[in-house]
């Protein structure tokens, strides 16, 4: 029994068709993302590098397998993870402008990275401070995000009202941002630069070895989201309604928060905080599929999120030039118009169906 939104049409509308179309788009954009880069490689050489590496120059194989493939896979995972995390947060908080970072995950991660990057020079003798390796940055981001998650969960277990949790999340974020600001203020140029570059987001620095960690993490988060689809449906009608249905609201909240944190936290750890995708994609999916059922919205968000992120990555490569754009600028420029349009279009904030 489909719960269709206010835009209920006379024709019976089947979301499956849209989902199939999105899946086709994912494949097309994935191939495009492999094909388009600052260094031109022909499509046949890309296919050879992937499936018959003996037939092309070994350097081309390296570029395709070690650079473009992990980057495209990372874009796919990041788009899917952030969109699903954003969808969950919008539903739980019943707020159309909530996103994957509403719980303060990105500020927690930023604090972890800031302590590592900006703190090392001040806390330890700089001579002794080790390189900012890719793994250490990811680890620091994850620990920072996890600390905020534990705080939120602790609060969530005691506080009944969801809005209180939202406000506390914003307060935690502000507090961590303040600490990060102080650290930035006292940092020298090169530390500052490496931190600022981290905040701009990056897909291309994720290597195959890191994907081995990122992929299972995202899959686990998505699995948790899919099994809580029914719970999410109940949240749409408000927590009191969910309680009256006999649902353990606090337990459901914890499950959804953990899923969101695994999704947003893993992506933030390896790619930095990537904005706007997680807010904009769920709205487009709701409109395109004309449904409020999470069993449809979750796969929709996975697919559209992937497409959007792959598309953003293609743009950020500035095809044909040596330079690149930071991925965060691209996602912001794509996402902001959507968010503005949502704000202008919403007659009542909070009604998400």
């Amino acid at each position: 029994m489909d719960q269709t939104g206010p835009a209920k049409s006379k024709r019976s509308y089947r979301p499956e068709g849209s989902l199939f179309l999105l899946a086709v788009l994912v494949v097309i954009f994935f191939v495009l993302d492999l094909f388009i880069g600052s260094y031109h490689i022909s499509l046949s050489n890309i296919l050879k590098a992937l499936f018959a590496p003996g037939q092309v120059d070994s350097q081309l194989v390296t570029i395709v397998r070690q650079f473009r493939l992990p980057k495209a896979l990372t874009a796919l995972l990041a788009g899917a993870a952030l969109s699903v995390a954003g969808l969950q947060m919008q539903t739980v908080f019943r707020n159309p402008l909530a996103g994957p970072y509403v719980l303060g995950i990105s500020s927690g991660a930023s604090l972890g990275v800031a302590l590592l990057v900006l703190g090392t020079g001040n806390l330890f003798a700089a001579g002794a401070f080790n390189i900012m390796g890719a793994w250490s940055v990811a680890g620091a981001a994850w620990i920072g995000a996890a600390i905020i998650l534990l705080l939120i969960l602790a609060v969530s277990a005691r506080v009944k009202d969801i809005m209180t949790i939202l406000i506390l999340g914003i307060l935690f974020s502000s507090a961590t941002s303040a600490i990060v600001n102080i650290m930035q203020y006292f940092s020298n140029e090169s530390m500052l630069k490496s931190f600022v570059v981290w905040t701009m987001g990056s897909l291309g620095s994720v290597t195959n070895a890191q994907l081995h960690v990122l992929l299972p993490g995202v899959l686990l988060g998505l699995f948790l989201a899919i099994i809580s689809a029914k719970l999410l449906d109940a949240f749409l009608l408000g927590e009191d309604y969910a309680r009256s249905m006999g649902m353990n609201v606090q337990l459901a909240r914890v499950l959804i928060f953990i899923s969101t944190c695994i999704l947003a936290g893993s992506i933030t750890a390896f790619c930095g905080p990537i904005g706007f995708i997680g807010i904009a994609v769920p709205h487009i999916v709701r409109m395109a599929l004309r449904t409020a059922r999470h069993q449809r919205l979750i796969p929709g968000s996975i697919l559209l999120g992937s497409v959007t992120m792959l598309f953003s990555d293609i743009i950020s490569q500035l095809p044909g030039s040596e330079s690149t754009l930071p991925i965060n600028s691209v996602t912001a420029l794509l996402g902001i118009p959507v968010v503005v349009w949502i704000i202008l279009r919403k007659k009542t904030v909070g009604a998400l169906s």
Partner: protein
Amino acid sequence: MVRKLLFLALSILLFLFGCKSKKHSSPEGKSTSVSTSVKYARGFTIEDFKTYKKLTVLNPWQKSSGISYSYYLVPRNQKVPSLLKGKNIVRIPVRRVVCLSTTQLGFLEALNETSSLVGIPDINLVSDSSIIQRYHDNKLSEVGYAQSLNYELLLSLKPDLVLTYGVDGEVSAQLNKLHDLGVPVMLVGEYLESTPMAKCEWIKFVGAIYGKQAASKKWFNRIDSSYRQIKDEVADVNYRPKILAGLPWKDSWWMAGGESNLANLVRDAGGEYLWHGNTSRDAFVVSIEDVFMKAKSADFWINSGTAASIKDLRSVDGRFSSLPPVKKHAVYNNNARTSAGGGNDYWEKGVVRPDLILKDLVTIFHSDKVTDGKLYFYRQLN
């Protein structure tokens, strides 16, 4: 192609505008001046008048054009000439100096004037042991960085002169504030010079404020001939190894331009910088896959930033393992002389001893050319 055309158009414009002589309303009137000759540096001029000297800094921050600051140096034992009323006056020789960049310290060290130093940005960035000793003897304070500069502390040091530098126009706010506080401040723009000897030549500029023009000239000439001698040794080598330099931030690589100080050093040392065709003096962003395509032919990798070992390089990005310099351990970093706090002498003494930097690079690129084979600023990563 478009970028090349743009650059060409810009160069022509700059040339045309540069040829227009600017009419300064100068207080000198008709008094005659002798200009101290400046051989390489583009960022400053020195004019000698009977009773004072005039130092002018041109375009003192990146992408600045048509901007200049003039300073009038008047010996302490003389009266300030009335025609200099309202100008930036510095009484020389200066006795209490604050340096806001550690690259300025090299000049003080070369001129034997570190005893005049009363303020530095951060002791951890200092490499020179005599300056570190002064800090431990409480003769020297840390005044902080550009945005977190402690003005009260700076003022309490009663400096005769603050040497600062500008990354962009923002510095003019700092200049105005110091001016309002009555602290004489001077911009030093040695970091904008695109050749190592031009950087070194700023010793004449710093020498002037200590009244040590002869000593600074002597230093410059000695280093200049030493530098050229080393450069001549490799001027006509047939084998020019290909050089990769720097370290990326995530997946973007700020590559030193083909006309930058680093590119010029590599060229003078008989190497071929991988981006030698680029015409920029500033760094530009290159995507990491482009770097890899170019770097597959690299022979050496230099100035690997914070990476202190081959393992560090791999931890920054595991894919570096496949680059020839990493495979052959032909990676050299310029941090052999780093203090316990992390201050790197390359940015300090290296400014006034570019001949030693050049000798290091020749030793690395052409081991058959240099007799002793010892490295000074550089070390091989293992």
